[in-house]
């Protein structure tokens, strides 16, 4: 132990590393941050918990100088400081590992690590430093590798090395485990604990996963609608209490529990509710699959993104395709949207192969899809609710090349009522709806075409709890109505709550298919890591 480290250890643990007082930030009428007070101490992992849109990210962006606060004070120790740009944050010893990594794919590891420094480039020294930091924290990486060749876990390591090399006293991690396997998450938390205990740094861990917060943090602050609503030692609170604070009311519904990560994922999950249509009985043996994927291989730039992927989904069944982000799910979604053609393999709908190279063939064959990225391929943001709703059935509302606004509005009003789409009018641009309502527009459009198969790719991404609950119910209803549902999700709880069978995808392959009854966290974890269980 060096003198420096000893000195740090002697510092009382109560000395605040960072102190926020009355931080507020508005975006037009939206209050993203409302008079937030927050103390973060050396030697602790501080959990910042909140739903999507609760203001966690805005608060951290203010700390990093990416967003300017409207009012309030940031203090390092007892000194007020001004963080007006990212460089200032670095100078203050604030480092952040971003949710969607801040690495440049086309550059090498060492180039990424020194990006943002100043002065002459010294490749040899940079590589040495990377290796040194990587050894010290047990984060093995090849400094000369190009980042786009790395796995998500390796990228996370590079991010950490990049941050730690600058010796930050406050380290912020924004949803760090969303793209990691369980083993990789465990590795990350080991490093964080070392960083906090042995080096006395402060860590802010942003998450919406209760299990993670309870397991890894020392203290926790809950944000709701931009306000601090709860603050406690982690050991003095319970997951249900945190969930209640996060949502603002008691969380009892199964769907909400799943959304918040409260399901007992390590034990056997509760059996599917009767009457929800998710039971295995809906997919009786002998039923012909509504969707049959056969040996799908997609090769992009010489890399097999999907390899020999085969999967059947029977009518009335919900099959969950579970895996960590970036293992080929997006490509499968694109393929089933008709955006990507397979290098080999076939897609059969109701027993008939689909000619994938013909635009709209999947839709005509009765496949509906809720795409992963609803802004780019789910809706046209600047077109109206009505236009978005009839987009795939223009024939129904037009004659002789003209669109009948009357018929379009009639259909739109009916769908809006049926799917609880909250919108000022049918002419409102979809852009101004909330995420949940945008997603309902997509769902309404896809289900109104009466599909035999529904693909739901990350259908609850970025939605609030109420909207998630609604989406779950709609998917269950669709399945009990005889639709074959393929749920592509990175949330274990979501898959467990909805699906009767779980197929695990890893590096573009299906590594195993389990019924929900036999799926345990351990077995799934092995499959996610690419080990056949």
């Amino acid at each position: 132990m060096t003198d420096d480290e000893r000195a740090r250890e002697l510092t009382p643990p109560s000395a605040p590393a960072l102190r926020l007082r009355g931080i507020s930030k508005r975006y037009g009428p939206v209050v993203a941050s409302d008079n937030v007070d927050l103390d973060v101490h050396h030697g602790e992992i501080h959990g910042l918990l909140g739903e999507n849109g609760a203001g966690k990210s805005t608060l951290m962006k203010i700390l990093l100088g990416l967003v300017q606060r409207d009012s309030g004070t940031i203090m390092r120790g007892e000194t007020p400081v001004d963080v007006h740009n990212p460089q200032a944050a670095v100078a203050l010893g604030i480092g952040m590992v971003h949710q969607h990594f801040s690495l440049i794919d086309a550059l090498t590891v060492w180039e990424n690590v020194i990006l943002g420094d100043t002065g002459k480039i010294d490749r040899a020294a940079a590589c040495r430093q990377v290796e040194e930091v990587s050894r010290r924290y047990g984060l093995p990486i090849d400094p000369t590798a190009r980042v786009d060749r790395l796995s998500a876990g390796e990228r996370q390591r590079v991010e950490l090395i990049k941050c730690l090399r600058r010796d930050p006293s406050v380290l912020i991690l924004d949803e760090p485990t969303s793209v990691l396997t369980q083993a990789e998450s465990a590795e990350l938390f080991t490093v964080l604990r070392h960083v906090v205990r042995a080096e006395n740094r402060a860590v802010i861990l942003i998450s919406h996963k209760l299990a993670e917060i309870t397991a890894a943090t020392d203290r926790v602050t809950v944000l709701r609608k931009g306000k601090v609503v709860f603050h406690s030692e982690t050991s003095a609170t319970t997951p249900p209490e945190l969930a209640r604070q996060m949502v603002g009311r008691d969380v009892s519904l199964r769907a909400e529990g799943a959304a918040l990560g409260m399901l007992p994922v390590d034990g056997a999950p509760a059996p599917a509710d009767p009457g929800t249509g998710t039971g295995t009985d809906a997919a009786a043996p002998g039923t012909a699959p509504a969707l049959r994927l056969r040996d799908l291989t997609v090769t992009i730039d010489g890399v097999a993104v999907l390899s020999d992927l085969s999967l059947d989904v029977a009518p009335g069944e919900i099959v969950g395709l579970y895996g960590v982000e970036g293992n080929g799910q997006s490509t499968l979604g694109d393929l089933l949207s008709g955006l990507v053609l397979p290098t080999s393999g076939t897609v059969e709908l109701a027993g008939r192969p689909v000619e994938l190279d013909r635009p709209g063939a999947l839709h005509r064959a009765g496949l509906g899809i809720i795409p992963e990225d609803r802004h780019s391929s789910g809706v046209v943001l600047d077109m109206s609710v009505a236009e978005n709703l009839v987009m795939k059935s223009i024939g129904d509302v037009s004659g002789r090349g003209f669109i009948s606004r009357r018929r379009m509005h009639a259909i739109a009003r009916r769908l809006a009522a049926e799917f609880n789409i909250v919108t000022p009018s049918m002419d409102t641009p979809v852009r101004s709806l909330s995420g949940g309502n945008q997603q309902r527009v997509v769902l309404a459009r896809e289900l109104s075409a009466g599909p035999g198969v529904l693909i739901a790719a990350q259908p609850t991404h970025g939605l609030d709890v109420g909207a998630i609950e609604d989406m779950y119910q709609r998917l269950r209803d669709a399945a009990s109505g005889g639709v074959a549902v393929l749920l592509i999700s990175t949330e274990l709880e979501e898959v467990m709550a909805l699906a009767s069978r779980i197929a695990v995808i890893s590096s573009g392959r299906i590594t195993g298919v389990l019924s929900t009854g036999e799926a345990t966290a351990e077995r799934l974890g092995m499959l996610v890591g690419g080990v056949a269980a």
Partner: protein
Amino acid sequence: MSAADDISTILSSGIRLTVPLAFAACGEYLAERAGTMNISLEAMMLGAAFGSVATASATGSATTGLVAGVLIGLLIGFVHGNLAHRLEVNTFVVGLVLNALVLGLTSFLITISSFDSHQVSQVSVPWLRDIPLIGHPLFVERWPVYLLILVIPLTWWLVERSRWGLELRAVGEQPQAADVTGIHVNLRRRQALLWCGALAGLGGAYLAVGEVGSFNQNMTAGRGYIVIAAVIFGAWRLGRTLLGCVLFGLADAMRLALPALGLTLNSQLLVVAPYLLALLAMLVFATRNREPKALGQPFVRGST
């Protein structure tokens, strides 16, 4: 005239026709690596060509003219940079407007003024110029040609080895990530456009006060666009880009030489030939997967 003399003559004029393109290509290459699709390259070259002739005529010094050309290129780069990467005007629109503006302005100004002819001096390298076939084409040239020997490796070094270049590449690939890392994205892009402007200006000025000694209407005749095409089809690699420029230069030289060699072809068709040839050749070598990912996309903080 012997065949060797013919070849030497074609090489010689081919190199002269390549030089302006090569200067501009070094600039455009760097700007595109930083993420700007700089359409106003044509304006930079044409404006500089006019400015250099006008200045040379006014001062009596071709070298001063050359410097003036560089300054005009810089000015256009500055305007483009601030419109596109400060005021967030669409970069393509800015480029098209600047090109039309400079073409119209120079065409008008040349009709109301007359300039004396000035040309920068020739340097001939002893010994080397006596090498058969390539000696004369390579080593008896107007002096700015030799600047290329500096500019090409310097551009490569800046992009691939300097910190500035590392940041430029980051900005051209993933501006949001670069911003988060603490790089001033739009400043870097404006700086890249200044480098581009200076070099395109040098190329345009060389064309006027180096090669021809005078200015005529639409003198660059789409060479800026050819350079942009060379960068794209050269897959954002400097060597391939310059190769594309050489190819175009040689094809252009062939066009000029064919009548002298006794071959008569439809002259309009001949004018098109180098452009067509360059396009075809570059298509063959085209690879898109090295394109800077954020090429042509504006950067606004907070929009992802």
